């Protein structure tokens, strides 16, 4: 009979209409009172006292709370994380970048007299306006100094704002992605959790820092 197929289709859409919602309302979703209290972790009276307007809004289900899509720990994000103490200025990352967007200038230097760590980095600019986030620079880094970031909100109106200068890399909050860093996956590190910031550069390496004796053995005695 003509029309059976159409009715079957309409039944399917009805089923999906009543099913669970898949869409994530990034950046803000509207919630009611219960959702608002859950998010702010406040009692109803406290919420009424501190934010009366928002309390009334939440009664109508119009209070807005931020909502983020779920993000895998390996997600290759925008803000590169760079640990200066690990970096020797070897420029492997700049060499392996398919687009050549990493600019490094070093001066032989003052920082440390140990082998492999005696270069000062003056310029370390990453032009993420041209970056395609393939992560080959991270793969190439032999000392685990450069990591992919985990953010994705670095939109800008000017091209200049898309260049990450060395000062920003030095001072940025470091929540690196675990992409190509199995040692961090072993520690079950999740960059998007609260308090995931890494402050100590020792925590991100594949191996411990070699001692002076080991370095002498490897670089002096064996040669």
């Amino acid at each position: 009979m003509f029309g059976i197929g159409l009715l079957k289709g309409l039944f399917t859409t009805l089923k999906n209409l009543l099913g669970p919602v898949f869409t994530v309302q990034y950046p803000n979703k509207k919630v009611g009172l219960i959702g608002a209290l859950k998010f702010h972790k406040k009692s109803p009276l406290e919420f009424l006292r501190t934010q009366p307007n928002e309390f009334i809004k939440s009664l109508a289900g119009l209070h807005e709370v931020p909502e983020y899509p779920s993000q895998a720990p390996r997600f290759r994000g925008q803000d590169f994380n760079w640990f200066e103490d690990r970096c020797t200025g070897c420029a492997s990352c700049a060499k392996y970048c398919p687009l050549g967007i990493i600019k490094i200038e070093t001066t032989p230097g003052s920082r440390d007299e140990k082998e492999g760590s005696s270069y000062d980095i003056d310029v370390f600019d990453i032009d993420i306006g041209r970056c395609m986030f393939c992560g080959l620079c991270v793969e190439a880094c032999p000392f685990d100094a450069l990591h992919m970031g985990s953010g994705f909100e670095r939109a800008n109106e000017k091209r200049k704002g898309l260049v990450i200068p060395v000062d920003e890399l030095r001072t940025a909050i470091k929540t690196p992605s675990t992409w190509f860093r199995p040692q961090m996956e072993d520690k079950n590190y999740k960059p998007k959790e609260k308090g995931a910031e890494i402050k100590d550069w020792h925590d991100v390496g594949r191996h411990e820092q070699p001692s002076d004796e080991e370095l002498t053995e490897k670089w002096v005695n064996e040669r």
Partner: protein
Amino acid sequence: MSTELVTMNIGPIHPSTHGVFRMRVTFDGETIIDAEPIIGYLHRGSEKLAEERTYTQVVTLTDRMDYTASMTNNQAYILSVEKLSGITPSERGVWLRMIASELQRIAAHSVAIGFLINDLGAWHTPLLYLLREREKILELFEMMCGARITNSYLRPGGVFMDAPDEFWPSLNRFLDEMPNRLDDIENLLTDNEIILARTQNVAILDKNDAINASITGPMLRASGVDWDLRHRNPYDYYEKISFRRPLGTVGDNNDRYLVRLHEIRESLKIVEQCLDLIEPGPVQPEEVPFLVRPPKGESYVPIEAPKGELGFYLVSDGGISPFRCHVRAPSLINLTLLRDMVIGYKIADLFVTFGSIDVNMGEVDR
């Protein structure tokens, strides 16, 4: 009554052209007299760019050719590099990339079906149901390799990193859910009278015409030719896998839709078989260097990409980057028959036929 022929440009920017594609169409009333496809609006010179990048760096370029099926692009390129440089891939790496490429096939076919139905005028409801399923695959890819579309997951010798622990339960959940979702799609679309009236016996592609024009992929199978490179010329470990190859009978737009839908079910079975056979181990052999330097020679390994036979013809002069890289792109070759298929049909059938070919302009123009 005397009529006048009208020549019209459709595209290059047009919602129905799936990218930047232009057709110069001549109509007599609503009937198509002539349709001339004009391509080249998305040409980025990927083949030339590959000549000045190392073998590993070229993987990132292959992502951007057919951007709905990056994993299979990576696979075709990597197989060619492995043959060229004589690398034996590690077992787990091969299984992982087979799982990845079959998931990618499901995602690519979902896009193909969704936009075909979208072109028919079923605005967005079926499309978004299918994109929702694709989204789950993209999330699996994000867990695996940190990116959703431009994966760059594969490396010569396997993959660069094992899938994380949380990937396997998510994959199992997806495999459990997906057949039900496909039943939904079938209920919604397959018996729908409007869709049948619009697609059945429209733009029939004859078996011999298809073979003569070297059409490959689901389009060829919809015309009734049993030609699947996973079965005829197995690469990776496909000879250890058993799967059916759905065939069409008429070769019209409806058959092309049905073949893709059934191939999704077969891909799910392939992933399940891969999960049974995969064993722990290294994902890339130790001896593979970061900078692959193959000996002089040339190689071509065709694979069954979602859209047809995809292969990278690589010539090496012994250096660190390919001397020449040519892509046999299925989209481009499947597109060549568009004109012969649409002549004599109405203007509304043009877009449906174009959607049923399932081209990706990133791959056509490269």
